[in-house]
């Protein structure tokens, strides 16, 4: 069984995790539809080291993993707060 290291819970079977796709910068609230469509629907599909959202399902804990898509090796996992330090508010 492949093992992933959850930043909250420690090493766990990979079957406990769900991949949430690439970590990308969110477009500005007023950005063009094409930019939002790209952000929501399109993947870069990089061959190499990527940064991805992963979730530990038993705790619903979302974090970030760096993974080499060529070898499927997980290089590093860390809390999302390392990247997203500030709260993003939208005008209502």
């Amino acid at each position, binding site marked *: 069984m492949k093992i992933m290291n959850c930043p909250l819970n420690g090493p766990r*079977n990979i079957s406990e995790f769900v991949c949430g796709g690439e970590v990308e910068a969110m477009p500005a609230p007023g950005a063009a539809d094409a930019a939002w469509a790209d952000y929501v629907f399109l993947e870069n599909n990089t061959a190499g080291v990527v940064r991805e959202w992963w979730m530990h399902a038993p705790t619903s804990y979302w974090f970030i993993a760096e993974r080499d898509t060529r070898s499927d090796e997980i290089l590093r996992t860390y809390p999302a707060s390392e990247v997203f330090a500030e709260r993003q508010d939208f005008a209502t």
Partner: protein
Amino acid sequence: MDGQVARPPRRSFIYRELEAAGARFVAVGDAEVAAHYAGDDETQALSSLGIADLSPLPRTGFKGDGAVDWLAAQGIAIGEASNHAVRQADGALAAKLAPGEVLVLDGLGEGEAICARLDAAWTPVASAFWPVPRRDGAFWFLVTGEHAATMFAKVCGVDLRPDKFSNHAVAQTSVARTNAIVVRDDLGAVPAFHLLGDSASARYMWHCLADAAREFGGRPVGLEAVRSLIR
């Protein structure tokens, strides 16, 4: 209040299974708990491999920003590290599941009803955190005895052996392919693990554990036998 119909006691999610296993029930507060089972001496099973259903007993949880600080202000002792539980003065157990989430299990003895006090104290108006009603949403089993860790090895990927998983350690993981919380909480010298999972899977888990425990001679044990070890 006049004319108000008395609420029936809170029963376990697996009441019929317990009944079929020969459980005799006893009232504990507003709940009805399997106190003992017909047949052999349960104390022996407790130290070998016993499974108790504690589902009707009080437990609660709080999650979100400020939950830990609020609980501390309510007099609950909570450790620094996540996935670790702390015994309270009256026997309750507070397990920190994440930096912003705590699970509270009432003591199995006759201590203060901490969970009821916390649930009553929480108010939605000023709170940026919210209650997690574990008493409705999660079953609560207690697996005891020297074979407990070996039995768990059949259904759980985390190593729960006593020298690898210390007392009051918490594992949030997959047990029998469903999400569950395991908290080690020894009864004196007897290893014991609280197991909580989705209440909709209570019957499934009860049968999974019974099946996994069969080769070790495991059997259901009642609350009275469990209490005899913590007195």
